[in-house]
């Protein structure tokens, strides 16, 4: 039951719809148009549908699609296997050093995937850091489908870890205690009560991981090519970067990705609508965590191993490269120094400008997607407006769109000669790109949170005379804020380091952190690029932590 049924038009819904049209529908429409009309870029609608058939009958399409599904499912399974047990332990028990583990699990978000992959390559390839220090290399493993899944899992599992630990914490042990009172064992009440009630968070985060895995470019490009493992995103990149440029072909392949992600979305929605997951009823809840007892040592050990692999190894490889004067010099004392960091300082204005640009874009993207995400999720979950299903679809679309395709869609949409004003060729186009690519994160988190908030809370506010906006702002928003803030943090981290779309749509003369780093790599200055990457990771990790501790929200957020 929704309280908004009495109100003809809820302003929250209108704002959400307008925002979604600008941020998602416009670029997506141009991608679809591009797939249909090959000459769209020249402003011509000639020869419609002429390219669709030869893209779809390409025998490579089936292989690439199969590989993409395999990769997505593999990453979701491995991520869940790692993240769910740790998250449940973190939520229900007093894990020693819990806050430290949370921070360490946060770091993989802050490491750009292409940097982490390069770190792994430099650590594990023959004569890499592992061989220099310990005498072994794992090249055959790394350059295989298993290596790709492994590296991508370490980049994405924190999504599930944070989502599940938060939802399980919200479910708390109260409902399970009821089960215990009625005679169920601890295991049984966990499996039958706590875990099922945590489904929204788990399903939402698994969907996100699947979408991130099928859309990610850096890792499959760096590791997959050598394994002969091509996925849709690398196929799209080839069509966009190989002259003559094949934009219609790339748009078609992107639509295949969209269909795939949409399928995953339907499965998630089917799971969520089968039953009610409302657990936040307004009754005060005491958060009581249990002691681990004799399991303390094994549990801490598990946290140590996972955070070592996910955080320490890539960070150390990045730092080692940044501290090396030359790559060929290896890890010898005489070859180590601060030359690369000094070079960044020497290029103060350029590096600083790139940092400020990316950080302000990151903050702006987090605020916009947070606001739009909360409103959209509210419109979908808590109102009975017509067309809210369509809104929900719009929020999931960008999930499956590779950054490069979003970039092309944005250029096609906003570089039309008849537009009186356009964000194109200003920093705003980057903001639009980041908002489009990252909007699904806040929406998924907020949707999961709204599913757990009882309808009677909003109804109570309306009974006492609050309008829909006031009820949203004073009652619902504070309740979902912890989840929303976490996702905004994620948006900030990813937006500050987004590479693929940034390269294509960045206005002339504007550098972001990622394009700065990428240019260093491209010129062969790997050490300089890694030094900049290290500085960035430090800043993007510390900044949110400082903000959060100032807000006093740390406990509830992490």
């Amino acid at each position: 039951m929704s309280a908004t049924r009495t109100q003809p038009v809820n302003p929250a819904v209108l704002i959400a719809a307008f925002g979604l049209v600008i941020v998602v529908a416009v670029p997506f429409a141009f991608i679809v148009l591009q797939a249909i009309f090959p000459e769209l870029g020249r402003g011509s609608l000639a020869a419609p549908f002429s390219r669709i058939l030869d893209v779809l009958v390409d025998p490579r399409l089936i292989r690439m699609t199969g590989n993409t599904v395999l990769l997505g499912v593999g990453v979701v399974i491995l991520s869940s296997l790692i993240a769910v047990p740790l998250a449940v332990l973190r939520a229900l028990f007093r894990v020693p050093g819990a806050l430290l583990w949370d921070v360490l699990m946060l770091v993989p978000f802050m490491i750009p995937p292409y940097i982490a992959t390069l770190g792994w390559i430099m650590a594990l390839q023959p004569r890499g850091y592992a061989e220099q220090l310990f005498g072994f290399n794992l090249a055959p493993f790394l350059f295989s489908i298993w290596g790709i899944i492994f590296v991508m899992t370490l980049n994405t599992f924190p999504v599930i870890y944070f989502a599940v630990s938060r939802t399980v914490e919200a479910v708390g042990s109260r409902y399970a205690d009821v089960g215990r009172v009625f005679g169920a064992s601890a295991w049984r009440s966990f499996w039958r009560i706590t875990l099922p009630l945590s489904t929204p968070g788990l399903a939402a985060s698994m969907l996100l991981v699947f979408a991130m895995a099928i859309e990610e470019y850096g890792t499959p490009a760096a590791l997959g090519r050598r394994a002969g493992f091509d996925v849709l995103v690398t196929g799209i990149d080839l069509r966009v970067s190989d002259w003559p440029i094949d934009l219609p072909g790339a748009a078609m392949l992107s639509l295949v990705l969209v269909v795939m992600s949409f399928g995953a979305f339907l499965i998630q929605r089917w799971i969520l609508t089968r039953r009610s997951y409302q657990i936040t009823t307004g009754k005060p809840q005491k958060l009581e965590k249990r002691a681990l007892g004799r399991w303390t040592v094994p549990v801490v050990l598990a946290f140590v191993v996972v955070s070592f692999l996910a955080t320490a190894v890539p960070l150390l490889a990045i730092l080692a490269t940044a501290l090396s004067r030359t790559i060929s010099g290896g890890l010898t004392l005489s070859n180590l120094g601060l030359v690369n960091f000094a070079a960044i300082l020497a290029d103060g204005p350029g590096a600083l400008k790139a940092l400020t640009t990316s950080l302000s874009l990151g903050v702006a993207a987090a605020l916009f997607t947070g606001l739009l995400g909360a409103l959209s999720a509210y419109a979908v979950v808590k109102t009975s407006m017509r067309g809210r299903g369509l809104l929900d679809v719009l929020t999931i679309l960008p999930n499956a769109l590779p950054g490069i395709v979003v970039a092309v869609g944005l250029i096609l949409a906003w570089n039309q000669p008849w537009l009186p004003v356009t964000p194109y060729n200003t920093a705003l186009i980057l903001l639009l790109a980041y908002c489009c690519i990252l909007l699904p994160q806040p929406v998924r988190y907020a949707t999961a949170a709204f599913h757990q908030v009882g309808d009677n809370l909003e109804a109570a506010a309306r009974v006492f005379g609050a309008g829909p906006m006031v009820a949203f702002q004073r009652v619902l928003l504070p309740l979902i804020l912890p989840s929303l803030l976490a996702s905004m943090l994620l948006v900030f981290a990813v937006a500050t380091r987004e590479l693929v779309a940034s390269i294509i749509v960045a206005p002339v003369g504007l550098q972001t952190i990622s394009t700065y780093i990428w240019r260093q790599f491209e010129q062969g200055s790997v050490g300089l690029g890694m030094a900049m990457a290290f500085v960035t990771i430090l800043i993007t990790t510390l900044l949110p932590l400082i903000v959060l501790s100032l807000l006093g929200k740390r406990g509830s957020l992490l």
Partner: protein
Amino acid sequence: MLINTARGSLAAFALLAITGTAFADVTVYTAGPASLIEKLAAGFTEETGIKVEFFQATTGQVMARIEAEAANPVVDVLISASWDTATDFAERGWLVPYTSPNAANVPDFLKSETAVAQGVSALAIAWNPNSKTPKPSEWADLAKPEYKDLVNLPDPAQSGATFELVAALEAQGGTKLFEDLAANGAIVAGANAEALNPVLQGAKAAVFGAVDYISFNGKDKGESIEVIFPASGTVIAPRPAMILNWSKNQDDAKKFIDYMLSDAGQAIVAATNLMPARTDVAANRPLIGDLNILTIDTEAVYAGREATLAAFAEIFQ
């Protein structure tokens, strides 16, 4: 909270709008090294007072942007890393004919009516002397057992110059060399920088067909890398600069081309370890006259590009 967020968003929005880029007098899209265009732009502005904004990426990314912008293009000057672009754009009628007065000392094969080279790179063997392998001198050496599993090739599908090298060598001796390389465990490893990195760390011993200036730059920084030009010949990759016919700043664009070919401009090119386009400008590296350059029948080679790439991919599958 909602109001605060909205206010914060608006403030951030305003801030970004201010930092948005103003349109410059000349907009250059370049696939060259970033440091080169930075210095050329700064020197040009200093000499003429004309502002330059540039967009730098790989050739493919630059092309993708031009293609997506086709309805309302903003680029005035394009500098590609592949001469093929100049030929193709000229055929499409997108280029402005222009011969710079400073191009007198640019050899004929590095200029056309609508394009002129900024500088030239060549492909070479980039070999790590610390790799405990003998120093190679010929392409075919890298198919010997001493280099088993130790050779990287840049992907000809991603690097235009590598594609021309493959075409030129296959025109000489068929596909046997590449079959031997594949049988010897050589692998195709991404674009140019990706292929070089494992050689620097020592995972591989040599790159077959490395872009020379990147390796020279690494050597200048103290990396253990040697650039070897096989006596049997190699291919060069001139970097054509051209003015687009939709440019509204064609006079300033011409001045930019003039500056690029001036003594000062060519000295900047030489300082990045590229070969200057002008033969009368000195550089601290082997020049075009020092190399045995393999010529290819460009038209026929590019007509058969798909088949060549497919056969190449088949060999290294």
